[in-house]
């Protein structure tokens, strides 16, 4: 009696465990890329790239286009023209035009993604200056599907220090962290090819403010301690004591194999001071100046250090001019000068612009390669 009752219950669980609302892959319109552009009357132009699974189809990716005032509305309108159920849980990247970012804050745009637990948060964010329609229509016949290609482009450029990498989840972190201002990968279209062009800097509300090129992006990544070693760099040495090999070349290339950085934060007379100490271990890879790598070791190290200091300080000056802090020095201010931080936390960008930031690099050559001079 008891046993049969148990069996009855067990079989009931088997019946009830069939999931309601299941999807079949071939009936889905799997949205992998969203593109958003500025439209007329405050509306947005929304483009999506959808992979096509039919064997007969010649193009691997289908482009859909709709107009809507919000992201969510656009997704619902896509339902009307897609030939399957629109599924956005696997979105790989979101392309946003710079023009739109000047009118609309990034975070209002993304709210739907944060609120819906079904959406993927590892989606990459990309800003571009070019019309989205052209970008999404780029010719990539010799490359993987557009969304996959875009993702690889962004991730590999992040690893090779050409740009930051901001996914939706990190953007959320940057939005709520009062001690940092958001930044997004920037991309550009040149000769019908896509290229990562640097970093777009946003203000605290998510509006576009300024851009960094790829070289400045490296400095930003080093300042953020978000680098993958080795970092390859080439600098032009200009100084009285650095002799030229000939008229043109005064370059020197090296790879940074290891960086030890420590940031010191203190407050003096209501002004934040940041001393950013860096200890680089570098390997020479190319030497086109009239210096002997062994005899003039110290001179060389000093020259490189001062060059790096100049570059970093230029980038920091740019941030301070625009009242931005993409490095996240506000976190250090909070950790080490809490009472003063408390007074400025709601307008950290402004407070940071008045802060005194010193970069103190120290270069140690650990190898000069296989040549004696």
């Amino acid at each position, binding site marked *: 009696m008891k046993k049969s009752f*148990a069996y009855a219950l067990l079989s009931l669980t088997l019946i009830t465990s069939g999931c309601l609302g299941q999807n079949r892959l071939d009936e889905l319109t799997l949205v992998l890329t969203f593109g958003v552009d500025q439209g007329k009357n405050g509306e947005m132009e929304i483009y999506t790239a959808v992979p096509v699974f039919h064997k007969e189809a010649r193009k691997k990716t289908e482009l859909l286009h709709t107009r809507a005032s919000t992201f969510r509305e656009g997704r619902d309108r896509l339902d009307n023209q897609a030939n399957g159920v629109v599924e956005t849980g*696997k979105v790989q990247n979101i392309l946003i035009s710079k023009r739109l970012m000047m009118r609309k804050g990034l975070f209002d745009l993304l709210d739907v993604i944060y609120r819906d637990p079904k959406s993927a948060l*590892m989606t990459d964010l990309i800003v571009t200056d070019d019309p989205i329609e052209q970008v999404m229509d780029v010719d990539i016949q010799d490359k993987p599907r557009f969304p996959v290609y875009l993702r690889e482009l962004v991730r590999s450029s992040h690893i090779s220090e050409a740009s930051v990498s901001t996914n939706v989840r990190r953007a959320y972190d940057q939005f709520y962290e009062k001690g940092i201002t958001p930044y997004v990968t920037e991309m550009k279209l040149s000769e019908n090819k896509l290229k990562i062009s640097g970093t777009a800097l946003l203000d605290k509300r998510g509006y576009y403010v300024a851009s960094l090129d790829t070289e400045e992006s490296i400095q930003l990544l080093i300042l953020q301690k978000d680098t993958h070693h080795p970092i390859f760099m080439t600098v032009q040495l200009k100084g009285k004591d650095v002799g030229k090999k000939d008229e043109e070349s005064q370059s020197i290339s090296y790879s940074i194999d290891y960086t030890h950085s420590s940031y010191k934060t203190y407050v003096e007379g209501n002004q934040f001071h940041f001393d950013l100490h860096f200890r680089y271990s570098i390997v020479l890879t190319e030497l086109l100046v009239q210096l002997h790598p062994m005899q003039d070791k110290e001179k060389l190290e000093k020259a490189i250090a001062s060059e790096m200091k100049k570059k970093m300080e230029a980038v920091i000056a740019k941030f301070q001019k625009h009242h931005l802090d993409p490095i996240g020095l506000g976190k250090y201010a909070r950790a080490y000068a*809490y009472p003063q931080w408390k007074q400025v936390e709601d307008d950290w960008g402004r407070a940071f612009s008045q802060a005194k930031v010193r970069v103190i690099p120290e270069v140690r050559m650990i190898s000069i390669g296989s040549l004696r001079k």
Partner: protein
Amino acid sequence: MTFNKVQGGISLFQYVMFISQVQIGVGMMTLPTDLAEVAGTDGWISILLGWIAAIVISLVIVRIMSRQPAETIYDLFFRYLGRGLGACAVLLFILYCLFVFTIAILVKIHITQTWVLPQTPNFFLMLLFMIPILMLVHFGVNILVRYVEFVGLGTIVIIPLFFIAMKGGHLIHLLPVLKEGWLPVFQGVKTTVLSFLGFELAFILYPLLRQKNKAAKGIIIANTITMCMQMLVVITCYIQFNPYQILTYIWPTLDLFETVEFPFVERIEVIFTAFYLFLISTSGIPYLYTAIAGIERLFGDSIREKAMLVLGLGYIVSAFIYNPTFYQVNQMQKWGGNIGMFVAYLFPIAFWLYAGVVDRIRRWDKT
């Protein structure tokens, strides 16, 4: 009392597992946010203080139970309060257990619906959860303890996930320690003691324990396991999320895993949610079991099966009629916290003092 008997009693390990698994449950999902709301990133200090409080009260419970090693709290109620009052107390305890169980199952349904199966109706999930729960409870503490043991060992599997999620976090979020001084930390203790709730089930478990002399040691170990688990969850959340961001999440522990990405599986948090259902079940089912043990003590052996059937059907039918919203579930959790505070923290001390006095008077009467 056949329901609450087990061949040869339960081992110390099972006792530890049982209590710590009851404690690790709903609280683990929401604790980082709840704590950050009151104590900021200093919440981890509150956990240490809450842990000490939980141990103290647990030891009080062990002291109460050691007066009559073979009796559960229900027997003690009758012994110390007399027939009428004792029955009332038993009834209250049953209601408390049922209430906690209700909260646990509602939260479970709510999380499943939000994260995994948004289109599946409430009653369906209730049916799905209720059947195995009733089966577990039906076969008594013997099977229940083994189930809890199984889930407890399974929990170890998810611990590495937390360490993986810790990667890429910023330890600097924890600085400065004691941001706003000690006051918020002490206020945070109230939040943490709620997530230690569960040790009060020692009231029913103690008579089954094989080695009674190790009861105190066991309950300290159980509380420590819970504390370590909470510490891991809270610290991971605090270094992964910045102090402002953490306040925006309802279930930070689930959001935590959205960053974790393996080459073979992308949305690990969905899998974690499914796994989490086991964890949360072990904090609900023992309460239902305790309630039914109380009903049996009150009305006799014959009514047990009927009570279980009525309760089970009651939950399923009510799921057809009444679907609590998110706000209602939240509100219920708050009430549960307040009542639990009373039942698990204040009541043992009061009862301990009372029982001490009664025992002394009775002894004095005899001589």
